[in-house]
């Protein structure tokens, strides 16, 4: 069964350092999403790509976060500098269309900022 691949699974970083997460969506899925999930809460959208274009980054803290999907396939989410409040699970998901029939999520990257 096709999966969304994410790496690393876990990341511990000191505040003010840079950190990057990688996602490889299911082959053929044009739409890619990055969500952030605080422990015990529901995921919240950070950025949505359609192919290589950003569709929605209204909730992305652009002073420190950036995301790219240069060739419309895999994607990288970067935080620089990391802050203590960035500690969370970062989830990547993909869908064939706009997700009305559901997303496929990766296993996520658990970030701890110390």
């Amino acid at each position, binding site marked *: 069964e096709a999966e*969304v691949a994410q790496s690393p699974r876990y990341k511990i970083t000191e505040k003010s350092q840079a950190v990057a997460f990688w996602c490889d969506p299911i082959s053929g899925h044009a*739409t890619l*999403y990055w969500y952030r999930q605080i422990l*015990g*809460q*529901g*995921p*919240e*959208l950070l950025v*949505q790509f*359609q192919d290589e274009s950003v*569709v*929605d980054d*209204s909730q992305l803290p652009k002073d420190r976060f950036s995301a790219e999907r240069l060739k419309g396939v895999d994607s990288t989410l970067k935080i620089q500098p990391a802050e203590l409040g960035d500690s969370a699970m970062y*989830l990547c*998901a993909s869908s064939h269309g*706009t*997700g*009305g*029939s*559901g*997303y*496929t*999520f*990766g*296993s*996520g990257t*658990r970030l701890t900022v110390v």
Partner: protein
Amino acid sequence: TQLLEQSPQFLSIQEGENLTVYCNSSSVFSSLQWYRQEPGEGPVLLVTVVTGGEVKKLKRLTFQFGDARKDSSLHITAAQPGDTGLYLCAAGAVSGNTGKLIFGQGTTLQVKP
């Protein structure tokens, strides 16, 4: 602001008991999804409901979409320890970026042997 409110937030029950989780909103949705998430993993899609009043069954799980398409419920019969996890409802945004999913805050279920 579009909100999906789930209740209860936490539920701890004994194996064999039945339970119901609710997902409510003031907005009308074209579809609604339920996900289950285990600790340290991403959410996994359980079901999508589309038609008002629709009922879908997945083994011991029964999902219902309200007639007005504003609410949904998940009922588990004879819960087992393997059902433990975070249950999330999600729906497409009704304005702005309608291609994104809005998630409820989740219901944490613990089933004790």
